[in-house]
């Protein structure tokens, strides 16, 4: 069929659609989700440590190492994971299964090369013992592998398996940590890190085994996915900017006068970091609602619209479907915003009741309050980015994620200069600025969606025998004819 082309047909076909959408959704959830799952693990271990009266410094070293490994492994893999998501979804759709496994090896090698180099430089400067450094480094590299494997399994829509592997790994880590502390002579950060390494190792082994069991056939195109870096550089940048921006306000505080340094290696800023963590817990409801609402009412309208385009609808039918889709989308977004604001306010109330008991000081509570609102803006913003990607508005998504990283950096720096009363306001303002711009862009894009749907694709597909090739043949045929 000539016309709208491969992308939309793929979107419309259930197989491709679910792969792509779920993949986008979950790969992004994976960028936020692990933050929650893994911090729960750290908290659990911390509680055990407290209960077993472990040395405070050792506890701090352990915590800082784990947090650093988590954050930086995520930032390193973020951009790649979005591109690889797209690549794997396409390969699945094209039934080119043998390309998938080699691309995993390829992407792991690239991320380890980049991330590994950065990690070595970072640890080389540190005055930790080599054992500790090695254990930290292992953790960080393993996490890089783990995030990438997770992307592959999300593309396979096998969330249950991911969840099980994670839970298993987390439980093993916790149990091992407990065991290390109770029975061994390694009552130190090193012992805990080794236990963690073991747990994560179990996770990545399991995930790899799952992936391998899916793709029996394989070839040697390890770096075939790199063509997608050319094809969709925006995807890489969108997720990289977004993920970096999630943490950049913390990084800025790590370099402020309030920062604490552990074993001359890890800087952090408990006054700011701890409230950040709790504030972000408040947005879990929005993620759940988003998944649910997208799976139901909006998806139907979305599908209707594109199926009319590819399935021979006339323009008034298409316009009609477009209006329906728009209406439902805004209803869902509004609905989600209303529900989430309720949860965020609840979060603030609960935070103000319980956080002081956990030892947070007055300044941290203030920061928490503003960051809950910031996180609110941020999650709605993330959802609009996802919607932009649904509609293949990659350029729009890139623009708004760039706005997010730039404003977040600038505003956070300003808030530091302005003093205590402004801490957290930088992130808050940045999240809302980005949100407003992304909503405006989405609204504009939706108004013109017919135009974008038809005109955002290349005029001629080189890969396929489209109408254009027929036309060329037609003229070729004229040429062969004697007049």
């Amino acid at each position, binding site marked *: 069929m*000539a016309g709208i082309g491969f992308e939309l047909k793929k979107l419309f076909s259930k197989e491709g659609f679910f792969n792509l959408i779920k993949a986008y959704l979950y790969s992004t959830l994976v960028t936020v989700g692990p933050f929650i799952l893994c911090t729960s693990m750290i908290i659990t271990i911390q509680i055990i440590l407290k209960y077993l009266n472990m040395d405070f410094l050792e506890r701090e070293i352990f915590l800082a190492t784990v947090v650093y490994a988590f954050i930086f492994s995520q930032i390193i893999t973020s951009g790649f994971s979005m591109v690889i998501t797209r690549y794997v979804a396409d390969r699945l759709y094209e039934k080119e299964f043998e390309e998938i496994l080699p691309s995993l090896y390829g992407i792991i090698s690239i991320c380890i090369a980049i991330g590994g180099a950065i990690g070595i430089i970072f640890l080389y400067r540190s005055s930790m013992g080599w054992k500790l450094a090695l254990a930290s480094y292992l953790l960080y590299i393993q996490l890089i592998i783990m995030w990438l494997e997770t992307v592959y399994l999300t593309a396979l829509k096998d969330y249950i398996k991911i969840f099980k592997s994670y839970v298993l790994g987390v439980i093993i880590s916790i149990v091992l940590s407990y065991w290390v502390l109770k029975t061994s002579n390694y009552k130190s950060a090193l012992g805990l890190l080794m236990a963690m390494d073991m747990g994560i190792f179990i996770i990545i082994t399991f995930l790899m085994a799952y992936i391998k069991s899916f793709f029996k056939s394989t070839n040697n195109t390890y770096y075939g996915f790199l063509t997608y870096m050319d094809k969709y550089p925006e995807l890489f940048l969108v997720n990289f900017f977004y993920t970096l921006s999630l943490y950049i306000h913390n990084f800025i505080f790590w370099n402020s006068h309030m920062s604490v340094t552990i074993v001359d290696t890890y800087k952090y800023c408990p006054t700011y970091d701890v409230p950040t963590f709790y504030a972000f817990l408040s947005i879990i409801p929005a993620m759940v609602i988003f998944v649910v609402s997208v799976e139901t009412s909006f998806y139907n309208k979305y599908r209707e619209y594109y199926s009319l385009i590819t399935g021979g609808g006339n323009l008034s039918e298409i316009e009609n479907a477009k209006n329906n889709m728009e209406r439902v989308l805004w209803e869902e977004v509004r609905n989600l915003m209303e529900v989430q604001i309720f949860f965020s306010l609840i979060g603030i109330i609960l935070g103000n009741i319980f956080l002081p008991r956990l030892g947070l000081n007055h300044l941290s509570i203030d920061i928490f309050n503003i960051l809950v609102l910031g996180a609110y803006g941020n999650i709605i913003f993330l959802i609009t980015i996802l919607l932009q990607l649904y509609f293949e508005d990659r350029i729009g998504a890139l623009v708004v994620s760039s706005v997010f990283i730039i404003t977040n950096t600038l505003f956070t720096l300003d808030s530091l200069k302005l003093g205590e009363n402004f801490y957290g306001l930088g992130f808050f303002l940045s999240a809302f600025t980005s949100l407003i711009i992304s909503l405006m862009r989405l609204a504009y894009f939706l108004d013109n969606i017919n135009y974008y749907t038809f005109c955002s694709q290349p005029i001629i597909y080189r890969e396929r025998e489209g109408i254009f090739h027929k036309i060329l043949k037609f003229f070729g045929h004229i040429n062969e004819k004697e007049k």
Partner: protein
Amino acid sequence: MKICLIAEGSYPHVAGGVSSWTQSLIENIKEHEFIIYAIGAESKNRGVYKYKLSSNMAHIEEVFLDEILDLKGFYGKKFKITGQVKDNIKSLIVGQPVDFNILFDFFHNGKIDNLMDFFMSKDMFNIIKEAYEEEYNLIPFNNFFWAVRSMIIPLFFLIKVKVPEADIYHSVSTGYGGIIGSLANYIYNKPFILTEHGIYTREREEEIIKSNWIEGYFKDMWIKFFYNLSNCAYDKADKIISLSEKNKHIQAEIGCNMEKIYVIPNGIDVSKFSHIPGKDPKDKYINIGAVLRIVPIKDVKTMIMAFYMVKEQIDNAKFYLMGPTDEDEEYYEECRSLVENLNLGDTIFTGRINIKEYLGKMDILVLSSISESQPLAILEGFACRRPFVTTDVGSCRELIYGKDHYGQGGFVVPVMNYEKLAYEIIKLCKNKDLRGKMGANGYNRVLNLYTFNKFIESYKDIYNGFGM
């Protein structure tokens, strides 16, 4: 003077009637310099010429439609586009009359630096949308959108290309070639001559109707589009040259101003055929020949069926099909098996041969094409004093019956009617005197009206008429 010849899908990349015609025109008008503006389909043919370039060829400008595939654009750009331009593009889509000067100006005044940007712009989208709403609002929009795009891209692409400068522009067809001529005429304000060998629009129309890749409801759109292109050339050309009276009338019917049309038929050098070997006196056969490429448009099967009927009555008839068999292998095989199935003896496919060695051996010549413009084969046959039986296509009727006093050079029968074809061949087989008489009539006609010199002189006059 510098003369820019505009060829579409023919010279110098593709061998054939129009191309040979172009080559001999250039070779025989040495006092002028020629530039070729060649529109081809595939860029792999760039620099691959089927003809030896004449010494007075200054330059060949080659444009290939598949270069469109390499164009890159970006959506979302905005263009300041006047209502006039909008209406004209819309008219182009829905097949209303178009003022091409508006479009020429729009693409050449520098506002459009990247064609694809414009093509992917919202302005263009809205034009397509409005055209749809006016004329096509019940058909699938997606199909319409892509059909329109593919239809007008090659045109806009060609309009964007810079035309080389010359003193006279001479297009050897309407269609895209005619558009380039009109464009040059608009930009440089130089005379534009149009020679039409066949009737371009009619040929396209037939192809479109037969084509299986254009959906039914778009065929009309495409046909109107090509009519629009031709009308542009008819409108802008200073002189229009037709090969025959018949074509002249068809052009006028399509919308060309009769006053501008001149008839200059093709010509051949009769002396080249004066010393060719004749028929062997011992040859007891009546030789019936056809000079042709074995391709469907020549309708070889009808000819074979006619031969079969001739053979039933004329036992000593022998059939020669003279010409290349490799252009459409499949069709050639079909013809071969038809001969076999009919048990038709004395039928020879000669393959590629030198015509001059064979023509003299023939008694009767046949042409059964479905479509022709002005077949050189008839002129050559007449030059050898051989009678012709042809189908009623192109200017065959004019050549055989003439609008002059030279008399009949053979017979004309309806297309695809092998019974009538056989009937006339048999009539000639049975009557040697009639063969001689008709052959002589044809010879006199060619000698007086269709000589090569006459053809060349006519063109020289036209060129010089526009001179200083």
